[in-house]
């Protein structure tokens, strides 16, 4: 241990790897539990995928920050087809952090994808929570997105 210095807070800044404001409302447990899990999680939620993006593509891209333990594709609850999100679990937290720093906000299948910390996969969480079976965001979407089934469900 050094008797001097340490580091500087500007150099400690790691905003990409921080928790976002989002908290899963279906999480069973307290906010405190959830945040504790998020802070040590090796699992990322990945959103804004195209419905056509494959597990193989996700594996190739996210494999760039470290060895992947598992990819779980998000599915339409009714159709059981891909509905534009997934979970990526790494063996090491540091690899997940690097994905948050360098893969979040870049493109996969020409779409800017978004990653966020996830408290951990549980059976059932692979399904969309929208009324029609897909993700909530595709229920009310007004714009046309060819990679996500066209117009939002309420518009259709």
């Amino acid at each position, binding site marked *: 241990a050094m008797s001097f210095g*340490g580091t500087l807070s500007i150099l400690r800044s790691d905003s990409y790897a921080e928790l976002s404001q989002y908290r899963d409302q279906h999480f069973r447990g307290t906010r405190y539990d959830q945040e504790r899990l998020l802070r040590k999680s090796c699992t990322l939620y990945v959103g804004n995928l195209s419905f056509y993006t494959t597990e193989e*593509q996700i*594996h*190739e891209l996210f494999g*760039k*920050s470290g060895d992947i333990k598992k990819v779980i594709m998000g599915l339409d609850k009714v159709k059981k087809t891909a509905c534009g999100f997934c979970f990526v679990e790494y063996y090491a937290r540091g690899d997940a952090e690097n994905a948050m720093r360098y*893969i979040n906000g870049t493109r996969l*299948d020409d779409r800017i994808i978004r990653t966020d910390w996830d408290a951990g996969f549980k059976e059932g969480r692979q399904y969309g929570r929208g009324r029609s079976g897909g993700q909530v965001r595709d229920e009310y979407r007004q714009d046309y997105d060819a990679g996500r089934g066209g117009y939002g469900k309420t518009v259709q």
Partner: protein
Amino acid sequence: MSRRRPSDDSDAGQPHKRRRTSEPSEIEERLESLICRVGEKSNSSLESNLEGLAGVLEADLPNYKSKILRILCTVARLLPEKLTVYTTLVGLLNARNYNFGGEFVEAMIRQLKECLKVNMYNEAVHLVRFLSDLVNCHVIAAPSMVAMFENFVGVTQEEDVPQVRCDWYMFAFLSSLPWVGKELYEKKDAEMDRLLSQTESYLKRRQKIHVPMLQVWTADKPHPQEEYLDCLWSQIQKLKKDRWQERHILRPYLAFDSVLCEALQHNLPPFTPPPHTEDSVYPMPRVIFRMFDYTDDPEGPVMPGSHSVERFVIEENLHCIIKSHWKERKTCAAQLLSYPGNNKIPLNYHIVEVIFAELFQLPSPPHIEVMYTTLLIELCKLQPGSLPQVLAQATEMLYMRLDTMNTTCVDRFINWFSHHLSNFQFRWSWEDWSDCLTQDLEKPKPKFVREVLEKCMRLSYHQRIIDIVPASFSVLSPANPVCIYKYGDESNRSLPGYTVALCLTIAIKNKASNDEIFSILKDVPNPNQDDDDGEGFTFNPLKIEVFVQTLLHLAAKSFSHSFSALAKFHEVFKTLAESDEGKLHVLRVVYEVWKNHPQMIAVLVDKMIRTQIVDCAAVANWIFSSELAHDFTRFYIWEILHSTIRKMNKHVLKIHKELEETKARLARQHKR
């Protein structure tokens, strides 16, 4: 910085730490923030900000002296890209408070000694440079600095020490000269000449066998890849020839000359380099990466030559910025682009060169590869009218020089380029590279294009790749990654094991258990029957073939399907692959089924190692077997081998750690 969120307060009875806001730590944070932010973009001039800050700190000295000392020592060590800003600040403080200046110098020397003791040599260089620039700020007397450098250069006379030890002291001396060479030479020219002459003779006699290992290109044209000390020496010699005139470094202290030259200077205490010990680990030697010169940007400002100190200083500072901000890509890109030099240097070219220098560094880049891809994308976002063109130019140059590029670097180039393209709709002028089509497909250029297209396909899909390249490039396009099932066609019914394969297919589709699978497989004859030593389950390659082919074919839909299959029938795999020959054969069959889909082979091999169906030795034997010789120079083979070695290393480290922990527990038990 933690922000209290509304959700924290709504917790039902969960205890959580409330940050006790004690005044001293708040003030320390404020001081640190003030000091770290000086020199950033501001409405006021740098000079007036420094003046103001010096005043604030001087007023705080009575109460917060040790905190201020600590912060200043830390910025000296960790923010070398702002070296002259902080030496000026220290100069101003010293002018106002001589004792503080003395205490700061003492603290720096203590910090330097500690750094050397714990092998923090890169940070120690920054401290040495800081001390030498303090000569320019009238804080340290030039003769005492020369004396320290005499002791540094004296290390080259030590016997039986690693060359890298002498190298470091030489580097610490030489790399400070762009900042302080002029001043030291003016005050002590005879001593300096002697030092430079000793430097020259050391550099002549030292070994450079590391150079071929570290060069990115083996060719000397268009830019020689120089040994780092040789390059620095050429730069210093040129600086001396130019009478130590250095015009690039920003020197805020010049504006304060009238104040600073009134200050009393301190003498550095005599500094004895700590002796070499068993635990000393010095930095590795380097080769300087160069890919650009002034001819590459004829329209823009002139790029400083490879033997100019300006080039050295710019590269050092840009590397330091990346080191400081690697976790924050937007900040990093912004800081790189706001490097002072205005329109006097082709900054985009320097930035691209420094980034590729790190990406291609041997043996490993300082940071994870994907960081550089994303950093370049951020830079393109900030400079959309200029940076993409420089990158395209760089890519073209790298392509032209593939013939002499180190293979590891080619691999990194492929990974970077394909990932980069995937962020820009794979737009590229492939026709410009049609020259590679006339070459033997194993030559570096066509091989590079093939590997790039294969990687691009992994990030998209097969048809996309067919669409993005001209028709003439089809010979380089990757195979459609489909599975090859040898028992698929009716026409194969004469193959041994065909009927069992059919049977197996139906059974698996009907969710058969492992036991049922075993009993179906019992019917498979053993082509090695004669070698059967009667020990029950001996190596039966046909059994392995039928089972693995069938299962992988049924699970071909996705990685997850295949992983589930491996998990479900793990017991069967373990039994069939019990022997070394069994393991090798499993790998062979996996290859036969998935040879069109190297990515699938890689993930299956990974899973099989992790679930102990095969072991690392089997993978190594398989990779180096004659059956795979034709694929030996394909990058997926090396991807698999490196991944396997990494897993092995991690495993060894893990069990070593467990062993040490168990030993420690045992020792504690014995003490009781």
